[in-house]
């Protein structure tokens, strides 16, 4: 057979090029390709705000418009659909009882499409075209940071329902999820109380885990604990052999987990298969709620710990009604979770602020916000007018066989929100280096 080495070389090179092209195409269509775009959109998120637009909210009729912006498509849709559902439920309840200041609420729903840039664009549409009185929604920190400059430029209101990494307090956002001192710090207090001293940190490689772990490291340094390992994995990563090996050899006695989504499945399977056990090396997770337990498989997470401000199993009267109504509306197999409850609560808090202000005007609502309370399913909550976060009770839970999470520890009543952790001596180092990272659009209080 005649051979042409040069030709072969050239053709093989062409084959390699085709493969790289195939690889690029393939990643473009999958999850982790998108997260990079997400991060970039966050970087470029400071939407060029054009002056303060005059509010166009129409308060003359018998109804008033409010806006929801949730991802109803894309990777985040699974999670954010649940928040949209509970927001709608709150509005239906309020309308059935006569609305707000005698006006029925009319919802304009927008799809954030799991892209921070789209969130910013839809928020602008809601404020400037739809003239809504307030906007509810957002999930990822990237989406919130992308929307923040829009709300500040137009002096509009956003109610953001997720627990998050803190280090932010915009005058135009109300944060109804936990600040770090209402989720991360209680989780660490619990581990400390139980005598765990060596922590291993594992998280997805993006803003929330990185910032949360800075808090964990500061806490450990100030409380006689030791961080023996800190590992990040690309979003959607499913290979945890090396990380679990490192975990086993680190001598850690507890794991703080800030992994997102699918990665949890691979991590917990590997953790279990390597012989680690919840009884001896527990994992406390910041992002696993009732919805996620069924997706991960209860076999893999039974007995592990979570830190939240709400569980479906809470026994108070408000929660029993909330769970019953939600299941009646959306199906008996649908669990309720912290982000959903927080979103539901945020609508009632806005209602409380408007009624206290006797006006839908943004400045008046903000002025009236301080001290507004609501008997939420998670317990009584109260708005802190200074940093726009809310007083919340913290619950450490254990995942049970029934796929639900059962409270094993709770804080002594609602904790005052402290997004910058100013009230903690050990956190002093965080303040100095947080200023640069809190985003160009943030005007911290």
């Amino acid at each position, binding site marked *: 057979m005649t051979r042409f080495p040069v030709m072969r070389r050239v053709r*093989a090179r062409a084959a390699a090029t085709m493969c790289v092209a195939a690889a690029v195409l*393939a990643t473009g269509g999958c999850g982790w390709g998108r997260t990079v775009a997400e991060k970039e959109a966050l970087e470029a998120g400071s939407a060029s705000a054009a002056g303060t637009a005059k509010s166009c909210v129409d308060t003359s009729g018998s109804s008033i418009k409010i806006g929801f912006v949730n991802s109803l498509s894309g990777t985040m849709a699974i999670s954010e659909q649940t928040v949209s559902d509970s927001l709608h439920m709150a509005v239906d309840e309020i309308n059935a009882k006569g609305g707000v200041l005698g006006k029925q609420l009319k919802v304009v729903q927008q799809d954030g499409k799991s892209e921070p840039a789209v969130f910013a664009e839809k928020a602008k549409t809601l404020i400037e075209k739809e003239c809504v009185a307030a906007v509810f929604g957002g999930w990822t920190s990237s989406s919130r940071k992308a929307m923040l400059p829009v709300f500040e430029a137009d002096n509009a209101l956003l109610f953001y329902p997720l627990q998050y990494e803190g280090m932010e307090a915009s005058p135009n956002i109300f944060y109804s999820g936990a600040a770090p001192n209402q989720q991360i710090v209680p989780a660490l207090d619990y581990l400390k109380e139980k005598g765990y001293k060596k922590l291993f940190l594992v998280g997805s490689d993006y803003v929330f885990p990185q910032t949360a772990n800075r808090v964990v490291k500061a806490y450990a340094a100030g409380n006689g604990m030791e961080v023996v390992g800190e590992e990040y994995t690309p979003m959607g*990563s499913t290979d945890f052999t090396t990380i679990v*090996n490192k975990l086993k050899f680190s001598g850690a006695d507890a794991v703080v987990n800030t992994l997102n989504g699918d990665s949890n499945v691979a991590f917990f399977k590997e953790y279990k298969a390597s012989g680690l056990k919840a009884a001896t090396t527990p994992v406390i997770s910041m992002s696993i709620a009732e919805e996620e337990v069924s*997706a991960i498989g209860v076999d893999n997470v039974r007995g592990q710990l979570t830190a939240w401000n709400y569980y479906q199993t809470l026994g108070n009267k408000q929660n029993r009604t909330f769970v019953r109504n939600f299941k009646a509306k959306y199906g008996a197999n649908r669990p309720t979770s912290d982000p959903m409850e927080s979103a539901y609560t945020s609508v009632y808090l806005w209602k409380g602020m408007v009624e206290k202000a006797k006006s839908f005007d943004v400045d008046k609502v903000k002025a009236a916000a301080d001290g507004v309370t609501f008997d939420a399913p998670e317990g009584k909550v109260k708005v802190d007018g200074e940093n726009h976060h809310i007083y919340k009770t913290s619950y450490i839970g254990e995942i049970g066989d029934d796929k639900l999470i059962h409270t094993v520890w709770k804080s002594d009543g609602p904790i005052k929100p402290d997004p910058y952790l100013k009230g903690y001596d050990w956190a002093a180092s965080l303040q100095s280096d947080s200023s640069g990272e809190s985003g160009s659009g943030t005007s911290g209080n």
Partner: protein
Amino acid sequence: MNMLFPQIVAGLSNGSILLLAALGLSLTFGQMGVINNAHGEFMMAGAYTAYVMSTLIGNKGVALAVALVVGFVVSGLLGLLLDVALLERMRSRPLDTLLVTFGVSLVLQQLARDIFGATPVYAAAPEALTNPVTVFGYSFSAGRLFIFILSIVCVAALYAVLKLTPLGRQIRATSENRDLAEVSGISTRTVDHVTFFLGSGIAGIAGVALSLLNSISFNFGTTFIVQAFLVVVAGGVGQLKGAVIASFVLGLCQSAIELPTSASIGQVAVFLIVVVFLQFRPQGLVAIRSRNLA
């Protein structure tokens, strides 16, 4: 304690996963020159087969065994359908298959989303495979051991088919010289279909096996497809041996690099190694003259 031994095991395990994902691809890409972007979705079909079987059959061990067979057939048939309906019409245009199969992969993903929903599901694995096995005082994942053995069995079986059976001879003949095979009385059309069925079927087996480690969702395959292509290209197009060596080298490299650095660096480093390697040896580890590409 020494991490060397467990890390070598981790590397071999990663290698066996890469190998399972790449094996079918090395057949369809290597032997036929089709760039099949839907290969990952055939793995997804296998994974969903494992899920369906685990819900239908009570005994998890039996469910897994049945899923391996059914997964092979389901993905094989999907591949056959793709080949008959589309790819056969573009034998002389291998670059076009890249785009067409990319479209097919999107369609299959949407189909999976419509049938099984967007929420990830998981196939309940046999209890024995979710627990650790202890070797020399170290605990390892029994599931990973199973995948390792399965990948070796698949390679051996495929090797036997290619080397020892008349079908294997026909496949190799067609890939070496299509015209000559044709005039020797081989129906290259049939051989192409069978090759594609086999390659896609192996993707199905890979999907069933990898569902042990992972949750199953519509984008199950996208996790593996890029690395599978890397393995095939680095190993040398059209060579089983190359794919085997490349899988284990890349698996070990990733574990070795990840240990002192991080998971992100490990992934990037493996890409870099392959890119640099291909600069010096664009034909891959093991070169062979094949019909379309060399």
